[in-house]
């Protein structure tokens, strides 16, 4: 079977302009675009395959970014794709993020579906103006006659021991911006499917890839996505405290749940998956059951997605809460030098510490 996208985002897409195709299809296929069954893959490889599948099924899908061509991206997510689809579909751009996002907007107006790679979280800011004042607003500005199916892939987060600007989690900036959709996969399976669903979306999608999860392997089921793009998911059932997070936090929450179980505390773990909009139903249902919620994220806590979840869950499940929603997050400092990241970032201990605090109420 062909890897097609599923979910509500599969619509007809914007009117595309015709013209001579730029890909000949003559190049040797180096990345399989049709797969079946299941396979154990890294998230990086799952993304490569997901991108390849999307490019195969719609030749308006193009990739743009710094070093994504012959190098295959600094994380090798686009490895082999330029060879397979040609330099007009996997485009090494000049070194200018505003230029990349701004020209991607123009290309989308022309009927393309650009998938932009930002090299590292901390380097999205030169493109922030185009994202905030243009990409996020142009659909509304056109009042229904323009769709902007652009995906901005942002490798993000810490735990990789890297230098300044290479370990940040800037989701909050975009979650505060109306007009953008934000998602973040936690597993290779979700990465494979969510990147295709994001590309199929007719709205701009910020696609946050947890760098520290690029290399661990997991099973990908090529047969079915299993969920729509903007849904959260309970990944471990429990009864005492609900813990929620996204991206790299999810595996940490699962580890915490394992440890907590050994000590007799049952955690219910929610994988947020979609950061904007947030799918609150499973979370609220869980909180109504447990009465306690801990939100974990790598980003600084102030004015963050964690703040929003705390505020909203408290508003919607006020009478169910036995304890305030507690946040475990990066401190409100710049991401520190790598030797301190283990202290800066939430870990299993800090999550369990918050769980314990939630249980003291």
């Amino acid at each position: 079977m062909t890897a097609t996208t599923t979910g509500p985002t599969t619509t007809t897409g914007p009117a595309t302009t015709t013209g001579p195709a730029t890909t000949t299809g003559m190049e040797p296929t180096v990345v399989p675009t049709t797969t079946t069954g299941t396979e154990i893959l890294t998230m990086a490889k799952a993304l490569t395959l997901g991108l390849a599948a999307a490019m195969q099924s719609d030749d308006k899908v193009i990739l743009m970014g710094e070093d994504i061509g012959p190098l295959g991206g600094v994380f090798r997510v686009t490895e082999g794709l330029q060879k397979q689809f040609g330099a007009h579909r996997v485009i090494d751009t000049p070194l200018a993020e505003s230029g990349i996002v701004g020209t991607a907007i123009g290309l989308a107006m022309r009927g393309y579906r650009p998938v932009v790679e930002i090299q590292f979280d901390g380097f999205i800011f030169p493109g922030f103006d185009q994202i905030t004042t243009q990409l996020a607003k142009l659909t509304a500005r056109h009042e229904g006659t323009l769709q902007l199916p652009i995906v901005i892939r942002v490798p993000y987060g810490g735990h990789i021991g890297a230098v300044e600007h290479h370990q940040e989690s800037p989701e909050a900036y975009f979650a505060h911006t109306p007009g953008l959709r934000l998602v973040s996969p936690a597993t290779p399976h979700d990465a494979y499917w969510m990147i295709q669903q994001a590309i199929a979306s007719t709205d701009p999608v910020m696609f946050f890839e947890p760098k520290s999860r690029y290399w661990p392997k997991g099973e990908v089921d090529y047969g079915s996505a299993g969920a729509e793009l903007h849904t959260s998911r309970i990944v471990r059932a429990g009864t005492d405290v609900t813990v929620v997070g996204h991206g790299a936090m999810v595996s940490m929450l699962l580890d915490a749940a394992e440890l907590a179980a050994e000590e007799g505390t049952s955690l219910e773990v929610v994988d947020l998956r979609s950061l904007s909009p947030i799918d609150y139903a499973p979370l609220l249902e869980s909180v109504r059951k447990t009465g306690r919620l801990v939100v974990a994220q790598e980003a600084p806590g102030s004015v963050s997605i964690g703040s929003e979840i705390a505020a909203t869950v408290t508003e919607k499940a006020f009478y169910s809460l036995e304890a305030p929603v507690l946040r475990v997050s990066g401190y409100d400092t710049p991401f520190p030098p790598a030797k301190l990241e283990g202290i800066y970032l939430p870990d299993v201990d800090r999550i369990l510490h918050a769980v314990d605090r939630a249980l003291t109420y």
Partner: protein
Amino acid sequence: MSYTPETLQLLAPDGTRVASDATEAYLPYIDALTEHQLREFYRTMSVIRRFDVEAGNLQRQGQLALWIPSIGQEAAQVGSGFAAKPQDHIFPAYREHAVGHIRGLDVVQIIKMLRGLTHGGWNPAETGNFHLYTLVIGSQSLHATGYAMGVKFDGMVGTGDPDTDTAVLVYFGDGATSQGDVNEAFVFAQSYQTPQVFFLQNNHWAISVPVRVQSRTPLFHRPRGFGIPSVQIDGNDVLMSYAATAASLDAARSGEGPQFIEALTYRIGAHTTSDDPSKYRDEDEFQYWLARDPISRFETYLRGLGEGEAFFTEVADEAEQFASEARARTLALQGPPAESMFAHVYSQQHPVMDAQRQQLADYEASFEGGA
């Protein structure tokens, strides 16, 4: 004032034709113009100026939040606007009312923006590929470049078929040249050799800031440093504006890559109706440019070609009528419904929009209930 020895001109301020070696190559474009086209140049400049005055009046009468006058820049806009072919795409800044009009935009759409009814709202596919106004200075330059990359990827450049080959024309001001985005647009355009013409209207001011603060060097030198061919023209000369744009668009469509035109012109009015130029501009400069008015210059030229009074009277009447129709339609404009706020933030269903639309409806209903 900022004319240089390289400034290209076909029509002197006194309405006489001038010739030079440098403009020689442009003459075929002028020679090919029909009388009808020349009349259309004049008609469009006159109608838009009259409309512009009317819109200013409407603003003063409280009918618009703001008006952005284009008076004085008609030749730059009308010449370049008529030079574009139907398949070309145009990315304006926010002052290119004449270009929009030429491409088929209903100018009342612009009025709607400045009355606070919409942030744009026209459909470029229905306005001769005239895209929305962009208020964040310089942003549109990158959209234009991206669009032109797409045209090139589509193979619609250099085919030799005059109805296929497509170019993009992007407008921006002297102030905009300082923005990173505009310079990045030069980088991308040159790197991908996009079919694109950058059209700079140097009207000498960015609100109150004179162009010399943006650059002590003539701005048409800038793109050359990026490897983009460029010319400086008398932007108040509609013939030169037409010919230079037509030639540059032809070069772009045929695959010669991006081109650049600096049109020297002047913002005769205020920056917007919120502005007070008396605070920063001196009378001499103003008078200097008044004497170089694009419309009266062209009128003299047409009269010299034998155009009779009847035509000028007809145009004046048409302009009057155009303005009064615009006024009437402005006064009849209806406000957008509240729920339109939520309608197009996303192109697909979105739970937050649904919830907030409902919240607003419930809230408003709570008053109707008499609470």
